[in-house]
């Protein structure tokens, strides 16, 4: 059923927002790509955006041999 909107009480516009932290996404490299997937029956997913935490390290990285 659609949500009930009450004049002078309900909020116009979206106010649902949250975040999830994944500190275990941890490694060293030059590049990163991320995939999100949701395969559950009758389960939803709505992604707004993302941040990637990083430190700049070697400016001229050496490859493992």
């Amino acid at each position, binding site marked *: *059923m*659609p949500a009930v909107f009450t004049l002078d009480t309900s909020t116009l516009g*979206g106010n*649902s*927002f*949250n*975040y*999830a*932290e*994944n*500190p*275990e*996404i*941890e*490694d*060293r*490299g*030059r*590049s*990163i*790509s*991320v*995939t*999100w*997937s*949701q*395969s*559950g*029956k*009758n*389960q*939803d*997913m*709505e*992604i*707004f*955006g*993302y*941040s*990637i*935490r*990083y*430190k*700049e*390290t*070697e*400016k*001229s*990285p050496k490859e493992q041999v």
Partner: protein
Amino acid sequence: MSTRETQFTAHPALGGLDISSDPTVLDPNFLIIADNIEYKEGGQRKKRPGHRVYSTGMVTSPASTATNTIMVTTSASVRALADFWAYGASIVPVQRYIAVTGASIYQSPADGTWSPITVSSSFGSDSNRTTNLMVGGDKVVVSDGVSQPIAVSSAAALVGPTTGANWPIFTAARYHLNRMWYFGLSTSPSAFNFTAANNIFDSTGADSGAFTISVGDGDAVIGCSEPFYASLYIFKGPHHGDIYQLSGKTPSDFSLVPVTPGAPLLNHRALVTTPTDIFWLSRYGVHSLQTTVKFGNVEEAFLSLPIQRLWRDRLININELDQAWGFWHPIRNIVGWCVRPQGETNHHWLICYNYALSDPKPGGKKFWSIWKTTNVDHPCGAVLLVGNVDSNHQLDPHFHLGTMNGQVWEGDQDVNDAGLNDAGQAYTATIQIPVLTRFKGKSETPETSEKEFCGLVTYFNPKGQYSANVSAVIDRRTISTTISLQGGGDPLG
């Protein structure tokens, strides 16, 4: 967070899908996979709505097989669908869905049940994929280019022409100026004929007429738009492709002019008319009339340029594009086409273009996504207004899909999460960002620098006690984890 740590944020999502460019040159809010998602008004990427089997039990069971749910047999193809509102002489209309399934014509009073209009095997063959329904003159005209066309009356009975000669065999028709315009004639491929005004059955009288459009140019008349700014746009194909504009109000001033060459239409059903533009699918990509006229019919003007790999690398079956069909979904701001992936036997990918968010200019962001159903073929589809089968959504425009098992699926099942399935089957929504190599944190970190990645933060709309899989590829190493879609919100300290 250590003092050396910084972060790079891609704010909500105002970037579309691009599978054709080098993934390292794309902006971070673009996507290189957008499966089973739709873009909301702010660009958010949300799992697409689900589908239920159209039936009297659909509200409680998405896979309902209630009585009169299946047309003909469970192996019959639903090959055309239309929403038929008949007024006749009454101000109160009667709604019926009309379907061509197998070799039969069915009707439904939009209550979840189907019933045959006449005896079985009355029209064409199950395998025909050029079956078309035209609503006009308080009739639905059924045609497929092979069988003798027939009409369904407002009383849901089959009727044929009662004035002059019978119709010739034609492929499709449009209703314009109270006339039926029909084309794809089995004996005259470049003909574009019209009936008398106010009588779609009069195809031979003094007020009827015909054009022949560039006869012998290597093409046939394949499709025709809905009336668009007082004109019809006629598409030849499937080899070279030319577009013509027909304007005028009466036979004495009907005039035909060429508009643009190239971009051949392959199937009338792949032509989509909206109030502001005409879209079509060709062997080269997806085009629109406004874009083609404004920017030229060169590749850069293709609306489908960001997903051009589908054509160039044959990720879709090019040889089956003549069976693709299109749709316009006004409340989701999308036009789309159902195509067959390469190597498969079913048409079950719906390539969807969000025209409200997209910039049609060459190089503009295009918001594409691909909706994929599983283990099912969709020979046709249409947006129909919901009837009394679902009183909570009556008159809502819902996307309906034909199947190859005698059933119709009703889409737009997302009013609550229980609708997020395809006739009871789960489906997977997936998004993937480009390969990011240059980061604009406190200071820009170039492509050549090594980065120590130390975390990912995902921003989302909390939906329930669900989780999503997250996979990060750093250079060539993969880290997989999950996130709760309830989210955090209680930092230490």
